[in-house]
């Protein structure tokens, strides 16, 4: 039984991807209509997928609480916060209602911004201990980084305008050589991985080999 579903899924993946690719090159109103529908259907499934995170958290933390595993009180707090947000959002009817806006800016905003900015501190302590010019490559990187930092912060311009000018020159060379090749590499890499998934050679994204 599972085998039929798996082949059906691979067939759906192949047909859908091919339709959307041909639609980009071939002018055909019927094809364009099908491609638009497939596109908008994917948006709807994407909306459902937003809830997957909640489902897996409820299952995992529910098990932690029921089995009293380590840190189970934290799991209770996690689930309570989640339901508080769900209930507030659904009752007020929109994400931009004043009540929802209040709990959002009081809880999500301070936590996310603090955690996301935390790396600034870890990079600072690493700058003192770990960022050594062990090789010529690391030396080139550090020198380039320092000049670009002096371009990024107004203090560089205040000390001597030559510093940000050098930083700007390094930035131009970096942008037009390394970056351009990396973008081409990403384009080629995406095509390679995409083709392997479409023909079914790469199974991991579709839920692994089991």
């Amino acid at each position, binding site marked *: 039984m599972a085998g039929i579903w798996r082949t059906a899924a691979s067939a759906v993946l192949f047909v859908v991807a091919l339709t959307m690719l041909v639609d980009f*090159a071939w002018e055909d109103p019927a094809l364009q209509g099908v491609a638009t529908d497939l596109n908008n259907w994917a948006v709807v499934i994407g909306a459902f997928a937003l809830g997957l995170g909640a489902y897996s958290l409820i299952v995992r933390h529910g098990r932690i609480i029921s089995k009293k595993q380590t840190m189970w009180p934290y799991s209770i707090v996690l689930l309570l916060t989640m339901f508080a947000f769900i209930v507030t959002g659904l009752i007020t009817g929109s994400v931009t209602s004043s009540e929802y806006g209040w709990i959002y800016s009081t809880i999500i905003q301070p936590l996310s911004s603090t955690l996301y900015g935390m790396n600034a501190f870890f*990079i600072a*302590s*690493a700058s003192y201990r*770990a*960022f050594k010019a062990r090789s010529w490559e690391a030396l080139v990187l550090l020198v380039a980084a320092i000049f670009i930092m002096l371009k990024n912060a107004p203090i560089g311009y205040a000390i001597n305008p030559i510093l940000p000018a050098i930083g700007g020159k390094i930035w131009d060379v970096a942008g037009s050589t390394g970056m351009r090749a990396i973008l081409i590499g990403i384009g*080629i890499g995406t095509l*390679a991985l995409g*083709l392997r998934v479409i023909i079914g050679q790469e199974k991991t994204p579709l839920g692994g080999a089991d």
Partner: protein
Amino acid sequence: MLIAGRYAWTAITLIFSILMLTFLYLSSKRIYVPQIREHPGVRAIVEAIGRAVEMGRPISYSPGIASIYSTKYAADTAAGLTILNYTARETAKTGAKLIVGIAPPTVLPIAEDIVRTAYLMEGRPEDYIEEETVQFYSPNQWGFATSYVGMMHREHVAANFLFGEHAAEAMVIAESGATVGAMQVAGSTNVYQLPFFLVACDYTLIGEDEFAAAAYLSPDPVQKGIIFGQDLTKIICAIMIVIGALLTTAGIDLLSRILSM
């Protein structure tokens, strides 16, 4: 009929796809298995293991914090596990002590299986200690980093490998590795994490280097075919750029007109 402005896109996508699929097929049927060059990153791994054996201190390894099924980083984690396979075989051969730190629950069984079979194949199954050689820390980024750093200091590791997908916590790990005096080799496709690895570690594999090293180390011929298919398309792009630049210097913008068709 074909939409104007997209002829070039169609031609390039078709040519590149045919090239990639052909060499994928040829390598999978072992008709032509391309030779991948020995990457300096691989030489750095061998050197780091040798150093750890000499100093009689353990080796720590992390295959990344991304789950095996995360669509964005599945390829990274797979490469991290392929390199783990090679590292485990080398440590078994040389008798060095290996400690593998795991964050994602889905990767734990796979990593345990890889290391257990590697020790078995090198004839030293007794060196693999359950729950010891491969240790699960926490699915949470910071919980994992704290436990991994604690292990590095306790065991006073001589070599540390960071492959697969790492994020902000990698800074804390790489710094601790430097303070412990371990030789560190890292690899990542996350371009925002790479600069810090490059200055904090002894050698760093940049982006696709990780996949090339995995293909070089892995017995599976298909990985080599995939790499070679992409090599050819990159060479074509390089040739187009050279021709395009020379033509525009001569005042003929033929290539960019073709590419805009």
